[in-house]
């Protein structure tokens, strides 16, 4: 394919105009969410560090909720459905069986987002209106479990959104079934395989959050039930809350496995290894959610320990990916004349924003892995839990590995989806590098701030005490956080501008090569059982039951399905009949500061 300038008829938009339209709408939704989310991000960065405060500190929670929900739910998942719609259509070479289904899921997801967004944004009003008998508000953060309570509309919006994604998965399965009956005995094309396995993981895990909302949180927020069992809803949330991170990540993996080797000038190193990785995610991503609850009371240490072991197994697919993707890049570099142990790195197409964005995203991901292992360790987690370290980790992973890959992928996909030439390639290159620089400043500050105990999720991290810091100073950390956040915001604006200009750049010939070369080692080198999805679903379900049946039974038998109460500790209120506990209860009531004073 040397030097081919593709004629428009080869472009995705020419072959599947209606599908290109679906993808463009999904991407538009994603990018609107990205823009608002990034604005909220920079406001947080400047507010926390007391550089610029345009809202009152209590409103910080509205901003933080918007930032979390718009970015990790709307931006990532709308991009995912767009990308997957492209991947299935392109790799199977066929349109959906029934386009009405496609429009329905896109509509459900959009309406759901809108409803949830209204509930969140009402938090900015001085006097939010009453809707359905309660005040409109949803300052519950993206980890929306009890005791924080949102207006019912927020949960209704989320439910519609999630149901939309379920229907999208059904749509893709249906395309595959139709393709299978036309192509009996053929291996599932790799991109479609990745889509189907991701969706299986999503079905298994999102059932947890659906149960939490529909059975407990929504009725409680509507006033139908009086109380709930907070440990139960937290556990159901995290049952979904860990796999959802792979739901963000797997589309980035798809781009790394499918597009990055091609951008490097080579071919995917191994198709079978890629399949194994996606299967490992079906099996391993759900039975680990309790690792977010190491510090939750009401779950035995034993369960937590088992989950820690499961979590460490998840390193395996990440390391396999690092190997396969880097080996594919090296293959490309050597084909382009690269030599030597490290010299080949210079033969990579570093001037291509799509390539450079994805490569830098992968690099950040590798280092985010280290902090992930720290979070996963049961004891060392105590050090960083709820500290600023955690957003540090979040921004290296979903905030960069995923977000930057999506932006870079857009640079490659957009011309094929619009038929327009990408505007400002060198600005695009600058944009991805700027994101990389911004994230280094911001997360460096967050990690180090976390290690000295700075809390996350607060407008006032300094309270009234000083942090003891070994290297540098708190002011220096603040400056880095604000600077990094500002660079990220500028980078986002550049990205959105390039996308917008490209959309309107319609009297141009795109320069893009959309063909995906076959893998060096193709699917014929792998056992057929990899494609037998039923086997993997069955094993995954067994693992989930092993991991969750006992903890859940335990939690319910102690707290009841609808719980004793949602009030925080202490649960014991009848002090007179428990004279011995009075001291302990009072101590805890006065918080950590008092406790420390009593002990020392």
């Amino acid at each position: 394919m040397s030097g081919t300038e593709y004629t428009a008829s080869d472009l995705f938009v020419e072959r599947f105009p209606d599908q290109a339209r679906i993808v463009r709408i999904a991407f538009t939704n994603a990018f609107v969410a990205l823009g608002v989310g990034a604005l909220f991000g920079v406001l947080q960065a400047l507010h926390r560090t007391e550089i610029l405060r345009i809202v009152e500190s209590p409103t910080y929670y509205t901003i933080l909720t918007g930032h979390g929900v718009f970015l990790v739910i709307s931006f990532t998942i709308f991009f995912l459905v767009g990308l997957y719609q492209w991947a299935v259509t392109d790799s199977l070479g066929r349109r959906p069986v029934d386009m009405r289904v496609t429009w329905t899921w896109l509509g459900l997801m959009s309406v759901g987002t809108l409803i949830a967004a209204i509930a969140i944004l009402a938090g900015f009003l001085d006097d939010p209106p009453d809707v359905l008998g309660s005040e409109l508000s949803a300052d519950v953060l993206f980890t929306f479990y009890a005791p924080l309570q949102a207006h019912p509309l927020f949960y209704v919006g989320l439910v519609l959104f999630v149901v939309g994604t379920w229907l999208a998965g059904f749509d893709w399965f249906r395309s595959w079934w139709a393709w299978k009956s036309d192509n009996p005995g053929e291996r599932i094309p790799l991109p479609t395989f990745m889509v189907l396995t991701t969706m299986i993981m999503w079905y298994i895990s999102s059932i947890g959050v659906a149960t939490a909302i529909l059975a407990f949180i929504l009725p409680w927020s509507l006033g139908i039930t009086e109380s709930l069992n907070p440990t139960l809803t937290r556990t159901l949330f995290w049952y979904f809350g860990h796999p959802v991170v792979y739901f963000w990540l797997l589309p980035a993996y798809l781009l790394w496995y499918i597009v990055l080797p091609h951008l490097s000038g080579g071919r995917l190193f191994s198709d079978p290894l890629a399949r194994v990785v996606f299967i490992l995610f079906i099996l391993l991503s759900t039975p680990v959610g309790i690792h977010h609850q190491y510090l939750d009371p009401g779950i035995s240490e034993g369960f937590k320990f088992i989950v820690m072991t499961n979590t460490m197994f998840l390193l395996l697919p990440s390391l396999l990916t690092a190997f396969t993707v880097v080996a594919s890049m090296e293959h490309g570099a050597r084909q382009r004349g690269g030599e030597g142990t490290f010299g080949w790195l210079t033969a990579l197409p570093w001037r291509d924003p799509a390539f450079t964005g994805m490569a830098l995203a992968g690099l950040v991901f590798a280092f985010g892995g280290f902090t992930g292992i720290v979070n996963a360790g049961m004891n060392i987690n105590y050090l960083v839990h709820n500290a600023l370290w955690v957003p540090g980790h979040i921004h290296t992973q979903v905030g960069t590995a995923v977000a930057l890959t999506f932006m870079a992928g857009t640079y490659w996909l957009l011309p094929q989806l619009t038929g327009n030439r990408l505007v400002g390639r060198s600005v695009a290159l600058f944009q991805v590098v700027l994101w990389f620089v911004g994230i280094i400043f911001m997360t460096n500050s967050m990690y180090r701030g976390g290690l000295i105990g700075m809390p996350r999720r607060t407008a006032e991290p300094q309270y009234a005490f000083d942090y003891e810091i070994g290297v540098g100073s708190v002011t220096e950390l603040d400056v880095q956080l604000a600077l990094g956040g500002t660079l990220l915001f500028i980078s986002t604006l550049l990205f959105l501008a390039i996308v917008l200009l490209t959309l309107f750049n319609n009297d141009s010939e795109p320069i893009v090569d959309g063909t995906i070369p076959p893998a060096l080692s193709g699917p014929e080198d792998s056992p057929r059982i990899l494609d037998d999805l039923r086997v993997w679903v069955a094993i995954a379900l067994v693992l989930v039951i092993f991991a969750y049946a006992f903890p859940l039974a335990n939690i319910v038998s102690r707290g009841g399905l609808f719980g004793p109460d949602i009030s925080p500790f202490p649960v014991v209120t009848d002090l007179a009949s428990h004279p011995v506990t009075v001291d302990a209860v009072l101590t805890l009531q006065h918080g950590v500061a008092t406790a420390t004073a009593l002990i020392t």
Partner: protein
Amino acid sequence: MTDGNVTREIDHDEYDPVGTLALIVLYFVILLLMWGFTYFIEFLGNDPTPMLLA
């Protein structure tokens, strides 16, 4: 646009990802150093947990 300058085709059998191996080894070395650093910050020079709760 990116594969315009492929200078030679390398197929499966003649390809050895030695550079990848080198990078992965390097990555592990960095991880070990980071663990060492974390250990240094967290454990060395800190007193044992006080046993005053009894």
